[in-house]
């Protein structure tokens, strides 16, 4: 993705602060404050920010930590606006997850099919590998949006006969969560529409084996019927 804005906070696939296209090195505390504000579209109260970022400290210590971190934020460029007791990211700072959310909503809708779209922005989860508590729900919220959007897009492309692209998008969904049946189903349907029955069957078997190993369950009968029916038809 390219941004008109010179400053960009990236949270998909990992944290990165870019100024004029160059990644900046950012201390941990500053990273956490920027992450929190980038995830909230609206201003965050200081006391709320301090409580989220330093839940194990007393209110006073957390407030002091926030103040010293904000001081360091200012030194790394004036990216945070403080108005009264509310903090927000400067208006012109671009945030990749906000743009990805907007794209995902269009795709979920299914009525508009953009001619070309950067698949990249929906290829990755929000800050994988960061285990901070306040991130858990944000991450799951984006994860569900991303996977649903990829599935919806895959189905739309399949229905419109753009099956090569459908397979590509379906693969992203299935990679996003290999144990998610709706993602595997989207991909399998795309393979079938693309005329690659063998790929569909192979994909189904891999999913089935994974499900047995991880959860001790079977794919749904509907999915099995879909694949069996296609395999029988292919054998003539």
């Amino acid at each position, binding site marked *: 993705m390219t941004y008109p804005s010179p400053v960009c906070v990236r949270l998909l696939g990992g944290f990165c602060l870019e100024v004029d296209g160059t990644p900046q090195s950012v201390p941990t505390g500053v990273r956490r404050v920027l992450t929190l504000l980038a995830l909230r579209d*609206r201003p965050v109260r200081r006391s709320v920010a301090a409580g989220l970022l330093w839940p194990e400290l007393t209110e006073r210590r957390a407030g002091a930590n926030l103040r010293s971190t904000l001081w360091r934020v200012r030194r790394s460029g004036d990216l945070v606006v403080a108005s009264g007791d509310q903090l927000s990211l400067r208006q012109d700072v671009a945030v990749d997850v906000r743009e990805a959310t907007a794209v995902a909503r269009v795709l979920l809708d299914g009525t508009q099919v953009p001619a070309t779209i950067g698949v990249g922005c929906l290829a990755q989860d929000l800050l994988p590998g960061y285990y901070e508590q306040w991130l858990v*729900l944000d991450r799951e919220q984006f994860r569900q949006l991303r996977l649903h959007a990829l599935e919806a897009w895959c189905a739309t492309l399949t229905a419109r006969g753009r099956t090569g692209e459908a397979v590509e998008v379906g693969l992203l969904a299935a990679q996003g969560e290999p144990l998610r049946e709706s993602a595997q189903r989207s991909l399998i349907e795309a393979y079938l529409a693309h005329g690659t029955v063998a790929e569909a069957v192979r994909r189904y078997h891999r999913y089935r084996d994974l499900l047995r190993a991880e959860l001790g369950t079977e794919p749904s009968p509907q999915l099995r019927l879909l694949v069996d029916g296609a395999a029988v038809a292919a054998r003539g």
Partner: protein
Amino acid sequence: MHGVRLHLLGELSLWRGSQPVRLPPGSQRLAAFLALRDRPVPRAFAAGTLWPEVTDQRAAASLRSALWRIGQACPELVTAGGPELSLGSEITVDVREFSTIAASARAGAALDASAIYRLIDTEGLLPGWPEDWLADDRERLRHLRVDAMEQLCLQLGECGRHGLAAVAGMAAIAAEPLRESAHRAVIRLHLAQGNRFEAVRHYRLLHRMLARELGVQPSPLTRAALDGDVPVTPR
């Protein structure tokens, strides 16, 4: 069309058509106070609520000054004929529109995608304002919004619009992380789509969150929603 609109969700703003109208702080508070009430308010009550820390006389003077400034900036905003004050009858207030949409969603009405996203993206009532008299309305609107989104999650799931349903359900959870009924709606949605693994995964997320925040387990109702044993394989 030069209708006057008053926005109280997020920052306060007043618009005549597409032109912003500036109000000084005292007038802003008076407008917000009246907009949140359906009936006319006695002057003394408005003055006492909006300026609680000064004498009645000073409060009445502040009220007069706020009214005078409103009269200069946007005369139709407030009706101040007799001993009572009310918001002008032609003023559109975003809170009222929001309440109507959210209440119909809560009652099970079908909304189109743009109305759903409007509900989801709605900000709270004047979030930066410390005034006590806002607290109840703020709480009521927050609750209404979460109720509406949870209901939308269930209802959209039933008509097979799983993606939007997930968006609504996760927004309800983000607004009220410990509300188990919203988590249940999302778990049921995953199951309705054949995504058993996602349902189990979400149950585990809820389990960890409840244990950490409240030291309790998910309720039997939530366990029952999973409809079977919860596999223990960590992942």
